[in-house]
């Protein structure tokens, strides 16, 4: 059982990462990774929502009428997302404005719905909750890596602190503006997927 727990939690970080292996949640990982700060808040938001909805749906899994299964799932996810959004607006106003529509779009993030369908409907609440945390962390890990690369190359900062010294700028160094745009994220993410799949020897076969 202990081994199982660990597998549920750790697998999504690398072996079965929702972003780099399952290619889910790409849209938001491109949109919110200009700066690490917003990426972190988004990552926390998604982890909370995935874990919470996994837990709730797993609790209800034997009572949900199959005809309205997905609608019930959607309702639970939406409520959690709206609550998360409301909290951001109350306590992290500036960040919530930078994330703008993307917090709301967690509802449509395939990772959330995917875990509900693939895991929470068949497994007990405790394990489902951990599965949600695990997948949320897997997503977070990718977001943090992509956002770090983009913020350092694009703005010369990391989490808002300057990492590329002023001297480099005086010597003619220029920030890579491309990294601030979505295509920059696309390239970083592509490279990340390549590295990860090469390391884990996991390839698509046809």
């Amino acid at each position: 059982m202990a081994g199982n727990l660990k597998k549920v939690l750790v697998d999504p970080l690398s072996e079965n990462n929702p972003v780099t292996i399952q290619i889910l949640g790409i849209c938001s990982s491109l949109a919110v990774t200009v700066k690490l700060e917003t990426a972190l808040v988004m990552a926390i938001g998604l982890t909370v929502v995935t874990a919470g909805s996994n837990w709730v749906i797993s609790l209800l899994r034997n009572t949900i009428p199959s005809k309205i299964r997905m609608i019930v799932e959607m309702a639970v996810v939406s409520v959690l997302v709206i609550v998360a959004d409301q909290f951001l607006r109350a306590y992290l106003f500036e960040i919530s404005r930078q994330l703008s529509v993307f917090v709301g779009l967690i509802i449509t993030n395939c990772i959330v719905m995917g875990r509900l369908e693939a895991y929470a409907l068949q497994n007990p609440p405790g394990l489902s909750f951990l599965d949600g945390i695990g997948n949320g962390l897997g997503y977070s890990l990718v977001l943090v890596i992509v956002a770090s690369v983009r913020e350092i190359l694009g703005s010369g900062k990391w989490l808002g602190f300057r990492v590329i010294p002023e001297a480099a700028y005086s010597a003619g160094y220029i920030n890579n503006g491309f990294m601030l745009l979505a295509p920059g994220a696309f390239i970083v993410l592509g490279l990340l997927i390549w590295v990860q799949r090469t390391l884990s020897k996991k390839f698509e076969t046809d």
Partner: protein
Amino acid sequence: MAKGDAYTLGYAAAVCVACSLLLSGTAALLKSKQDFQVELDRKVNVLKAFGVATIDGQGRAIGGEEVEKIFGEHISEVVLDGETGQVLPGLAVRDVSRDDLEGKKKLPLFLWKDGDRVTRYAFPISGKGLWSTIYGYLALGEDLSTILGVTFYRHGETPGLGAEISTDAFQKQFVGKKVFKDGRLQPIEVVKGRVANRYPEGSDRAVDGISGATLTGNGINRFLNGDLEKYETYFAGIRGGG
């Protein structure tokens, strides 16, 4: 799991009730905190327009207390009648209804006082850009002509193009421009392309446009000058009075 339709309907109803209770509970709980944040954001934008540094040395935004302190010491608010341009006594900005604000029937004005002298004026500006309504503030100096600052803080323009209007680089261009010259208002202009190409001799009323955002720029030209005219009736009185 073969359960009747009644069960399904009942289940759906129960889920709806539970969800709505949870949502309204959260909204009620966080309402005051959210309103406070929106109010603070509005005040920060007024300060930015006035040319007050809202970012401290470490690059962090100044806190709510500091904002309230500056507001308390220097800034008073009045509301003008949109038709006559006269001050409506006893009316605070927060009491003006949204309809009156949007329709510009009542015009809020922020006065910056050093001692008893009013040395700066700021007021909200808003109007259509390309996709959305743009909201901002404009501040004028004591001469009621020199722009101290312009901010655009809420809009839904295209990210990377029109949305660049909320960058400091764009907004800083307005500082020092003159809205009043030779006895009348002169229109501020966001030009298509660069000012240096359009007005080789330089201009005290034009700023560089953003490439790919000409229509957003045109929108700004329209509403910024339109709003200036609305306030002019009041400003003319002050100028006339010396």
